[in-house]
């Protein structure tokens, strides 16, 4: 996947590969600009072309490659097979239509439901995402909802067609902390109930630890590490993950200065040669700036793109 821009071609995604099964949550973790949202939009097929171009690769859903499907077939998958919720529910919901309209629209247009049935189902869905007095609030406009309620309504809307996979693109970033926890709990609960696969895109390690089964860590458009959530927290297999974990505030290290990762993530039009993380890596050595690390298999489904992956894991 690349973006063709005036500043040159940005290789936004490069060798990104992951899979999600029913009932499983995969967290895609990364800094801003690491390509995690673009991955999600590529899967959904809602990327703007231009500037976005998919040069090669495949996205398999139920065994079929979405990239070889016609535009109409892909549209049918959206909402029905794969649904998505966005970061900022206020701007993601249409301001001039009621919440009810926006949910019912899915049921009416995609399922051919009658007006009355669609309204009934919309209220049920709002009830499921725990919106109090759903019946009374279904005809409210998005701006009449609070931030958390809007995200709940957004979730209800995404569930309207019973998708098998839900992509949540930073669903709690725009919310305050207490509401964040509620929304994450709700997502986890719904996912369990429906045995639905979920891709959770986030930059928040704390969120990941609670909900995810597996984690893919992205850096500069690549997956640098992939691991089971417990394994990753126990012993990170890539210096980048290691640095991320070290920069988490911890209760037992009270009074010490918080560690940060020095430097900035690279511009995607100008990715450094060798390992893209080498300018910021605390474990950097000469091979890092010349040779792109291959994927190291660390067993139990763990992978890492680091020359010294085995060493990093062992030390953790």
């Amino acid at each position, binding site marked *: 996947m690349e973006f063709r821009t005036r500043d040159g071609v940005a290789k936004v995604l490069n060798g990104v590969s992951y899979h999600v099964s029913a009932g499983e949550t995969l967290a895609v973790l990364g800094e801003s600009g690491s390509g995690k949202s673009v991955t999600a939009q590529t899967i*959904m097929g*809602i990327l*703007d072309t231009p500037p976005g171009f998919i040069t090669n690769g495949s996205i398999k859903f139920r065994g079929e490659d979405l990239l070889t499907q016609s535009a109409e077939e892909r*549209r*049918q*998958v*959206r*909402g*029905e097979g794969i*649904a*998505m919720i*966005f970061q*900022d529910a206020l*701007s*993601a*919901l*249409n*301001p*001039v*239509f009621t919440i009810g309209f926006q949910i019912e*629209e*899915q049921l009416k*247009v*995609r399922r051919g439901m009658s007006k009355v049935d669609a309204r009934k189902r919309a209220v049920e869905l709002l009830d499921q995402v725990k919106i109090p007095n759903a019946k009374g609030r279904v005809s409210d*406009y998005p*701006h009449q909802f609070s931030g958390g309620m809007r995200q709940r309504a957004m979730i209800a*809307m995404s569930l309207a*067609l019973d998708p098998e996979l839900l992509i949540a693109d930073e669903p709690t970033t725009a919310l305050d902390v207490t509401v964040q926890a509620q929304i994450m709990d709700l997502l986890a609960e719904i996912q369990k109930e429906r045995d639905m696969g979920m891709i959770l895109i986030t930059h928040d390690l704390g969120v990941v630890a609670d909900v995810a089964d597996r984690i893919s860590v992205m850096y500069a458009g690549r997956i640098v590490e992939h691991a089971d959530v417990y394994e990753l927290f126990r012993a990170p297999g890539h210096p980048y993950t290691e640095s991320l974990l070290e920069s988490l505030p911890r209760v037992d290290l009270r009074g010490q200065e918080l560690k940060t990762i020095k430097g900035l993530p690279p511009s995607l039009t100008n990715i450094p040669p060798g390992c893209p993380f080498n300018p910021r890596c605390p474990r950097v050595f000469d091979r890092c700036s010349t040779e792109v690390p291959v994927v190291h298999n660390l067993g139990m489904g763990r992978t890492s793109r680091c020359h010294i992956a085995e060493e990093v894991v062992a030390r953790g």
Partner: protein
Amino acid sequence: MGRYVLRRLLQLIPVFLGTTFLIYALVWAIPQDPFAGKCGQRPCDPAYIAEMSQKLNLNDPLVIQYFKYLGNLLVGDFGTTFNGVSVGEQIATSWPITLKMGIIALIIEAVIGIVAGVLTGLRKQGFLDNLVLVSTLFLISLPVFVTGFVLRLYLGPQGFDLMDTSVSSDPTFGELILPGFVLGSLSMAYVARLTRSSIVENRRADYVRTAIAKGQPQSRVVGIHLLRNSLIPVITFLGTDLGSLMGGAIVTEGVFNINGIGGLIFRGIQEKEGIMVTGIVTLLVLVYLLMSLIVDLLYAVLDPRIRYE
């Protein structure tokens, strides 16, 4: 909402009084003998002057004159001109013609303008986009009388003879299409540009992306989600434009020899028939005020985020 409407309606009163007084003063307070040239080459008969002065309250101070005029207006009496023609009757015959033409102009500018704006907004920098940009620039920079004369000449019998460009004294809708197009041409260009920029601004909006991610068909993504939001400024423009179309009809009516309000007001000014001018302008002010009230109320309907206390 109810209280807001009431307050707005009450606000109409001082605005109406202010504007009409201004017009009345401008027309009647001119330091000139209102009877000059009214009786051919000779000076007017003193008896006639006395009678008309009495009728038009010319011997009263201006403010008293104005309130007497207003009192007559309230009972539907627009007064009579110097040669005894009833202004009310004149307006009654020409008003429907101008209104018809204004509505035709409004429909033409809305339909063509919005369609052109949507098509070019969705597909920037194509042939169509350039065509619309250049042609609207052309329409905006040309004075209406040029557009009018050129179209009349080239489409009419002396030109390519594509249609009958003459307009009868009691015109049908069909006869008024070309004048309506000319009248609305300037606004049509504005509507096209306004729609285009509004579509361009909104088509990358998050809610549009959501509608696509929901798997809604393209026709609904554009026709329902994008258009509904993009048309808010366009519809408010169209609303206020009906008022300006009525006033702007003077030139178009002149070009096509239409007996509308525009012609009436033009003759009124030429023949110094003050009572005619004040009557018509008062009516135009009223239309304008009502249209802007309707537009303000429409705002709340179009955009639910706007609420009137």
